[in-house]
């Protein structure tokens, strides 16, 4: 165990922590028994400080990354929670199996996606990772080893998925795999004239396995919402299935450049270039490999680094269908008023049922990335008010800045989650900077 300086991916939270990365179960248990408060850490790729807290022990599980059981016939796999998505894909894809709920970076661990109830691009069809989880094994300093499933410790099972690691260290996960036939993807691009136009087109495909998501411009009022809809379809025309290897030697995503290179000029320049490239230079239909579609940030880590030391803010909000019109009007009004510097604006379908603090609902998911500055914070503050007044769902795991008062208003089961966690673990051993913010 040693001291280590660490920060969240969005650079909102810096801390000196106690860190240990055991490679044996006995060592892991010993560390857990000897510490008053514990965070469990996967790859520490979260935008928010979900796996650490100031002066507190974080137990990294990168050495617990093995396959425990694989039942190809029944499409079930049991893995240790430290296994990264790239490692899991490298094993299951040659068997033409996978999990569709893949967040966009391959070093993210299975433990991480369970603790955050992660989703992928096809969340309107496949839902969140919740749907794939059959069993979980956790270790809790007081309760010991616990098996969780629909049939065993169901209450803790529910608290653990999307529970930010507060029920104990997630050690093993059994997942239901899905078929993945074909070798790569065919991507089609459709131009869109505004946010409303994007929504009209995207809503038509809210129950499709094809991935629909948009990239929309934010560089000025005239262009706001213009952009493209990307449709990634599995390519079944290829008869030859080649083994799909995922490169796991990925750049360090969490480092940063000395200065922030993003401002209104660079945003305009890059968005204009991107728009021209896809409108005039890129074919409207082309083949893309697995990595490009599923892990779009591989090789583009510079995007995160280029925000400099101050980092960035990402806001992700699910808006129910009936409130879309109002939300879009409000966003456009606020955009005119504050002229925020938005580096990324994207829209996709979402499907799920809101429970506890899980980022789930039926509707449309809006994603915005901002430069971390005063004006943008004022704009995002107004977004928070829209969320509170309209009972929208802002993502806790993406937005470090999100206030507890907003969370309480937007997540009606906040108190239930808090009470259940306190009832289960009266000493509140498993904590993080996020749980401190949540006062849990």
């Amino acid at each position, binding site marked *: 165990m040693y001291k280590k300086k660490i920060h969240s991916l969005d650079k909102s939270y810096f801390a000196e922590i106690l860190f240990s*990365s055991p*490679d044996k179960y006995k*060592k892991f248990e010993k560390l857990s028994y000897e510490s008053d408060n514990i965070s469990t850490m996967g790859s520490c790729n979260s935008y928010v400080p979900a796996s650490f807290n100031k002066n507190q022990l974080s137990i990294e599980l990168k*050495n617990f990354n*093995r*396959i*425990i*059981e694989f039942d190809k016939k029944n499409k079930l796999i049991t893995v240790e929670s430290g296994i990264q998505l790239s490692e899991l894909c490298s094993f299951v894809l040659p068997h033409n199996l996978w999990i569709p709920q893949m967040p966009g970076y391959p070093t993210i661990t299975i433990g991480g996606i369970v603790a955050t109830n992660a989703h992928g691009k096809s969340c309107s069809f496949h839902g969140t990772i919740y749907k794939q989880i059959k069993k979980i094994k956790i270790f809790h300093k007081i309760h010991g080893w616990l098996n969780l499933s629909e049939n065993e410790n169901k209450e803790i099972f529910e608290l653990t998925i999307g529970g930010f690691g507060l029920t104990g260290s997630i050690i093993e996960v059994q997942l239901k795999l899905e078929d993945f036939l074909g070798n790569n993807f065919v991507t089609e691009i459709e131009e869109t004239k505004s946010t409303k136009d994007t929504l009209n087109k995207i809503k038509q495909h809210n129950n499709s396995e094809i991935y629909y998501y948009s990239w929309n411009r934010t560089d000025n009022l005239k262009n706001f919402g213009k952009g493209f809809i990307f449709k990634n379809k599995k390519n079944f025309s290829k008869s030859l299935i080649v083994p799909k290897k995922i490169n796991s030697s990925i750049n360090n995503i969490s480092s940063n450049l000395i200065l922030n290179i993003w401002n209104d000029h660079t945003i305009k320049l890059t968005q204009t270039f991107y728009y021209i490239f896809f409108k005039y230079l890129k074919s409207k239909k082309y083949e893309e490999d697995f990595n490009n579609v599923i892990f779009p940030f591989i090789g583009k880590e510079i995007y995160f680094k280029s925000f400099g030391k101050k980092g960035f803010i990402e806001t992700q909000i699910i808006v129910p269908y009936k409130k879309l019109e109002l939300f879009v009007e409000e966003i456009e009004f606020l955009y005119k008023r504050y002229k925020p510097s938005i580096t990324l604006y994207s829209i996709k379908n979402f499907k799920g049922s809101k429970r506890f603090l899980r980022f789930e609902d039926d509707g449309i998911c809006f994603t915005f990335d901002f430069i971390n500055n005063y004006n943008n914070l004022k704009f995002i503050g107004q977004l928070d008010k829209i969320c509170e007044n309209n009972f929208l769902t802002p993502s806790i795991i993406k937005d470090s800045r999100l206030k507890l008062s907003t969370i309480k208003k937007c997540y009606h089961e906040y108190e239930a989650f808090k009470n259940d966690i306190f009832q289960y673990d009266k000493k509140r051993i498993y904590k993080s900077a996020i749980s401190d913010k949540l006062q849990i």
Partner: protein
Amino acid sequence: MSNLIIGASSGLGREIAYEFGKNSKNVILMSRDVKDLKVLRSDIQFKHNINVEIHELDFSKLDEVKNFISKNLDFLNRIDGILFPIGMMIENDTIKNTEEEFTSLFSANFYSVIFFISKIIDIFEIKNKGFIVGFGSISASLGRDSNIGYSCSKSALERYFEGLIVSNLKTKINIQFYKLGYLNTNLSASKKLLLPKGSPKKLAKKVIKNLDKKDLKTYFPKWWVLIDYAIKIIPFVLSKNIIKYFK
């Protein structure tokens, strides 16, 4: 063909086990941590489709090792080669260690290893083939005030392996000894070191590649050979004063 890895549940031993798997060679894994061994076995079997056998055995307890060998002589006959990527360290390993601490350290790092070899070498001689691979430490090159039991036992192991090489010059048994500098394992994770750490993965690859070589004593990372020679050339009177200066 079965290759026995002692201390296989973590660090270098674990990497060597995967490397055997990648080369489609069956392995027998031995460690005191059976839970880790079980998971490692399933992972290697699923990924590389080889036979993996596991045995729980604590090398820090010489009596346990003796007992295991006496009850499993048939087991020894099945082994074609043996590797000892085992290294036990304890906190506050100083000249004031208790008898129990010294006994555990010497058993794990030296006595149990040489006892095991003394039993298996007869079998290899009859088969007229086999390999034995040991792993020492650069810390064994000079007396020190920390990790004293560890460095003493590794020093003894190094002399033993030199003896083993000399004794087998005319046999077809391959004896190999790797003297290791800093490795990027859990043991060194918290230490701020002046020199870079070697990759256990690269070492494991090298070990498997070298298995056919005879009479090998080498360093990893390679450049530690220069430091080791320098330590040997400098008289103890001088090195003692250098240590005093930096303290």
